[in-house]
């Protein structure tokens, strides 16, 4: 392994404008007939990153992955891996390996032979190949299953064989298509961390395609949110969650209250937004807004204050009634109806056992700190 694992986990090359990207996707477009699956996408991924492409079904994320692996040819644009142009390089000659959603384990070969397949194609001797197979089996903790056939394994074991097979050739780039999609919830959570550990140990660059936002948040160094063939925002999980750039991203990642309003006059300190639902609201000043422009205020449910008494210390506070409530154990989620019928989602951590919790039909006040609002223009 070339890179220092600790370094790989802690550095953030995408913040350094001088850093050289390891994978460059430049203005790539893919059309199938009249349908544009990927529309002029440009993206840089750095060495040892675990990059997640996140999006709903049909957003083009899998097509983008298949273009990286060489199963699809871009209609336009260029893909560079480690400085090398991939145009005209067939799938079997690319320095990438892929872990398929269906795992695609060869049903007529044992676990061992599945993992050795790629190594033998590379021209390695049998002895060398099987030594490497041993290492890989140890990495994924399947030493005892070497001679089993795929249909004799559980779903989780198959997933690990697929990972071992894809990693065996030490690819420069590992592509993972919904790697945890076929596992049940409990196993998925365990496997998430295992995957991150393996990635950090080996320092291999991963690009993961997923539709599961929790998975993306847990795994990724950075996330690219895709919709309709376009990457709408790229950023660290925290950035994507805390500072979404559009209503789509805000709504797609986690849940959010979106309140429409008109921007007030520009102000140096705090600015006002006139809204129908909450009346005038004070928000932090946002650059580039003209007076009267339509904006959307996004606020996460966990950032909304929910109290029985009004809170004069919070700049924005509105009365309402609890319409719905759900208890999830570590937290409770509420739906509060304001006077004009607008519903606001609120979640509260259940930190103490002593309080009497707020419940259905109670008169409450919802409070919004100005700094918790994110002002969106699109």
């Amino acid at each position, binding site marked *: 392994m070339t890179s220092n694992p600790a370094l790989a986990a802690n550095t953030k090359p995408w913040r350094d404008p001088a850093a050289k990207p390891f994978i460059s996707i430049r203005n790539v477009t893919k059309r199938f007939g009249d349908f544009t699956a990927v529309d002029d996408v440009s993206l840089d991924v750095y060495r040892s990153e675990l990059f997640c492409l996140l999006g709903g079904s049909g957003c083009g994320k899998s097509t983008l992955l298949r273009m990286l692996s*060489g*199963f699809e040819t871009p209609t336009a644009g260029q893909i560079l891996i480690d400085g090398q142009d991939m145009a005209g390089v067939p799938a079997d000659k690319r320095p*990438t390996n892929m872990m398929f*959603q269906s795992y695609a384990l*060869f049903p007529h070969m044992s676990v061992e032979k599945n993992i050795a*397949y790629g190594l033998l194609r590379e021209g390695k001797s049998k002895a060398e190949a099987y030594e490497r197979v041993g290492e890989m089996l140890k990495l994924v903790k399947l030493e005892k299953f070497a001679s089993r056939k795929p249909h004799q394994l559980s779903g989780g074991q198959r997933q690990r064989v697929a990972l071992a097979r894809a990693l065996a*050739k030490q690819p420069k780039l590992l592509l993972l298509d919904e790697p945890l999609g076929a596992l049940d919830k409990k196993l998925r959570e365990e496997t998430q961390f295992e995957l991150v550990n393996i990635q950090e140990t080996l320092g291999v660059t991963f690009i993961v395609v997923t539709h599961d936002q929790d998975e993306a948040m847990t795994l990724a160094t950075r996330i690219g949110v895709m919709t309709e063939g376009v990457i709408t925002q790229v950023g660290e999980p925290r950035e994507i969650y805390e500072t979404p750039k559009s209503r789509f991203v805000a709504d797609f990642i986690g849940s959010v209250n979106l309140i429409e309003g008109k921007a007030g006059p520009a102000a140096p300190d705090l600015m006002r937004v006139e809204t129908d639902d909450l009346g005038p609201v004070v928000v932090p000043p946002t650059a580039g807004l003209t007076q009267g422009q339509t904006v959307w205020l996004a606020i996460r449910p966990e950032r909304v204050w929910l109290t029985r008494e009004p809170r004069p210390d919070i700049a924005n506070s509105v009365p309402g009634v609890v319409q719905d409530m759900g208890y999830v154990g570590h937290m409770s989620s509420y739906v509060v109806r304001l006077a004009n019928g607008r519903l606001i989602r609120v979640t509260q951590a259940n930190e103490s056992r002593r309080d009497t919790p707020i419940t259905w039909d109670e008169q409450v006040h919802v409070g919004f700190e100005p700094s918790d609002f994110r002002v969106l223009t699109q």
Partner: protein
Amino acid sequence: MKRGWFLPIVATLGFAFLYAPIVSLVIFSFNESRLVTVWGGFSTRWYGELLDDGQMLGAAWISLKVGAWAASIATVMGTLAAFVLTRFGKFRGKLLMTGMITAPLVMPEVIIGLSLLLLFVAMEGVLGWPAGRGMLTVIIAHATFTAAYVAVIAQSRLRDMDESLEEAARDLGAGPVRVFFDITLPVIAPALVSGWLLAFTLSLDDLVIASFVSGPGASTLPMVIFSKVRLGVSPDVNALATIIIGIVALAVTVAGVLLMRQSKRMR
């Protein structure tokens, strides 16, 4: 739901309609009497007589050889055709090719036989090959029409097969030819075995096409039986028919079991 009496009766009648003639043939093959329709007690006499009939045994041997060759050629051709149709995406004339490959399934045998005969005669005139009609022409003819059956079986198997298996092999560094032999072929092998068995059975059964394209010294078993029966049904034909039914039933069962087992394992 109550079953009632209607369905069992219909099922019984249906099966009787299909299998009563075959059962009576099997029973009469063990008939002692020389008269085919008069029961004269149990005996295996006609089976013994069959073994002494040189013409019959010779024809059986030819039929088996023709069947094995034709089925093997048909399996190769049918598999290639199916592979092209399922894996090459869209290409010009794909619909036409699909239709043309499956056409022999519904084409009257007389027409297949006649057209092949005309082709062979014309080819002999122009190319000098195949010289005359004989076993070779029967093999070619049988391979042609049974390839359609193999293609249909192989096609459905290839369509069921997870294409990402082939992509995974490509991804791991195998070229397209290697992928075909390492991955595709082993995965669809059971379907090909059952396709071969089906082609073999069809070739063994065929009378019409063989009559058209066969030549002197290359009479297949059905041809010999048919010419014998024209002179009156003799009981040894019953014995022979029973043996053929046994072989065909075995082949069909093996093919079915193979296909079923594989579809279970792939799930």
